């Protein structure tokens, strides 16, 4: 069932803002990889490069009251929902000023005040939490929605399929956003899944469609229609956004980076780059003046530089705080230390 109406695109200023956000997502990730290589980030980082149009397009249809749940590849969702790159880098660098005070790292960054329930290290696991949030909105009579993001690999995870059913029977204001980048780590989707993903979702009773995930305008239009329907009590939807990650599944210092995916395939997707596409459209349609792009790119780089500086200058958590935040309410001996 396709959306009944196709929302108009917002004004030029807003679309220029999308360009800026997408550029911010990309530069954030490219710099994060450098920080991994330089040893500033300990552990692994899953780059979102190539998929920027999905997070930016979908979150453009949301307000700060709406909730998103994210994935192991979560930086893009958080930035698109309004996350602060400085506090994000601080988290990646394990600093006390990070979103999670250095307790979560790349795979768990969250900003509950912005409705960001957090990245998640377990595939598909965030989706049911979005449903719980959506139910509380409904119970309180609030017009907000929840958007679980997940990848094509999650389409074979039981809890996600359970969540499709639950959202449908409870008529929850939820928009499931499937980022189909074609691979679960290195396994092509076709080897693990038969049929179209959006058709599988439709079989659960979700209003489901597939859109070009390399086109921020297409993602926005589909998301805005689904969000409007959900806010009006029209129930849950499913958007399959087809895109490509330019990078490997993840990066860690010292781990070889050999990409076995076909070169022609990679070149083809890179040729459809979402950022270049929107920039071209804005130019072609005369929606931004000459030189605007270079100016924005400089602004983004300056913001990134400032954010990294903030993170590097922040202190690491005190070892004495190791037991903090396990519980809201502690008791004598709880949590137990491991040495007394």
């Amino acid at each position, binding site marked *: 069932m396709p959306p009944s109406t196709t929302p108009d695109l917002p004004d030029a200023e807003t679309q220029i803002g999308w360009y800026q956000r997408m550029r911010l997502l990309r530069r954030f990730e490219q710099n994060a990889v450098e920080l991994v290589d330089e040893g500033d980030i300990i552990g692994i980082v899953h780059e979102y490069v190539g998929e920027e149009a999905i997070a930016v397009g979908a979150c453009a249809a949301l307000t700060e009251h709406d*909730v998103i*749940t994210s994935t192991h590849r979560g930086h893009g969702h958080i930035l698109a929902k309004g996350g602060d790159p400085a506090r994000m880098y601080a988290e990646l660098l394990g600093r006390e000023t*990070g*979103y*999670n*005070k*250095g*307790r*979560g790292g790349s795979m*768990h960054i*969250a*900003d*509950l*005040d912005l409705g960001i*329930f*957090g990245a*998640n*290290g*377990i595939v598909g*696991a965030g*989706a*049911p*939490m*979005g*449903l*719980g*949030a*959506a*139910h*509380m*909105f*409904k*119970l*309180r009579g609030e017009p907000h929605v*929840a958007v679980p993001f997940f990848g094509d690999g999650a389409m074979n995870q*039981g*809890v996600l399929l*359970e*969540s499709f*059913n*639950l959202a449908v*029977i*409870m008529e929850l204001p939820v928009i499931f956003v499937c980022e189909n980048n074609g691979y679960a780590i290195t396994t092509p989707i076709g080897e693990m899944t038969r049929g179209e993903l959006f058709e599988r979702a439709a079989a659960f009773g979700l209003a489901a469609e597939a859109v070009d995930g390399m086109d921020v305008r297409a993602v926005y239009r589909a998301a805005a229609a689904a969000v409007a329907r959900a806010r009006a009590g029209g129930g849950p939807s499913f958007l399959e956004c087809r895109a490509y990650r330019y990078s490997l599944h993840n990066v860690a210092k010292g781990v070889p980076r050999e990409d076995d995916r076909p070169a022609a395939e990679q070149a083809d997707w890179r040729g459809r780059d979402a950022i270049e596409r929107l920039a071209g459209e804005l130019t072609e349609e005369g929606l931004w003046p000459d030189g605007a792009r270079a100016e924005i790119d400089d602004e983004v780089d300056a913001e990134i530089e400032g954010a990294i500086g903030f993170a590097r200058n922040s202190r690491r958590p005190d070892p004495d705080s190791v037991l*903090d*935040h*396990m*519980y*809201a*309410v502690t*008791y*004598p*001996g*709880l*949590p137990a230390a491991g040495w007394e």
Partner: protein
Amino acid sequence: MARELTYIAALNEALHQSFAADPSVIMVGENIRGVKRSETAGLDGAFGADRVIDMPISEPAFTGFATGAALSGGRPIVEFQVSSLIFVAFDQLVNQAAKLPLMLGGQRHLPVTYLIMGAGAGGGRAGQHSDNPYPFLMHAGIKTVIPSTPKDAKGLMIAAIREDDPVALFAPAGLLRREGEVPEEPYATPLGEGVVRRAGDQITVVASGNLVRKAIEVAETVAADGISVEVWDPVSLLPLDKAGLAETVAKTGRLVVFDDSNRTCGFAAEVSSLVAERCFHDLKAPIKRITRADVTTPFSNPIEYASLPGRERLEAAVRALLA
């Protein structure tokens, strides 16, 4: 005369009073609406299907649903009809709910209650319906309580719902129809406080849930032979009243841990090592454990019974310690 209720009716009263007191309380589970005689009786009629929500057979999804509701200002209760069903939802319990508060750096509290009904062996229910899996949740850091009386069932249910962290309440199968005194007004029984259920001065038996009653029966039996047993009920297993445990061991100098979970890495193992570490010089004899055997609960009655911690084995252990 004080009012008496069954254990299950005490849970029911706690739920009704908690729903009435706080509009953010909701409940999810399987077959929780439209029931006449159970812990959820009358809840949907009184508080509506939006707060008392029947769920499909999707334990992972409804457990995660509760986590999301808790992050959004709700105070959800998740009912597991059978204790072994927690294994179906383990990712959502252990990887998500238990870990989120720390991973979020304390951004939000996670007030979720897991009500685990009919815990333990109910007789002839075989391997997948007879577990008492509290050590799994305790190992994951989930606060865990096992009320042994109707009065505590009500008080701990209310306390668990009010607590700003995930709390698992195990309601033992063997206690649900038992009656006891229950005050009518709402009250919370504090977590982390053990109770001496029977005073004695020669041996401490640590017992919880369904085993408290059995330990008291054994204590009465051996009392005829002049053996004085103190029965100490931890009530709350995590947090554990370590001071109360040390106090009773200091008083008696002998300890039997009587526990209805598996032996290896079970609750009795934890209590024994705590006492060995902290009370070594108070001990007059080695610590003994009477626990489940490390086997899947068998179906047929003689072997089911033989796999569980029973009165005879406790009595033998108590007598052996003073022989």
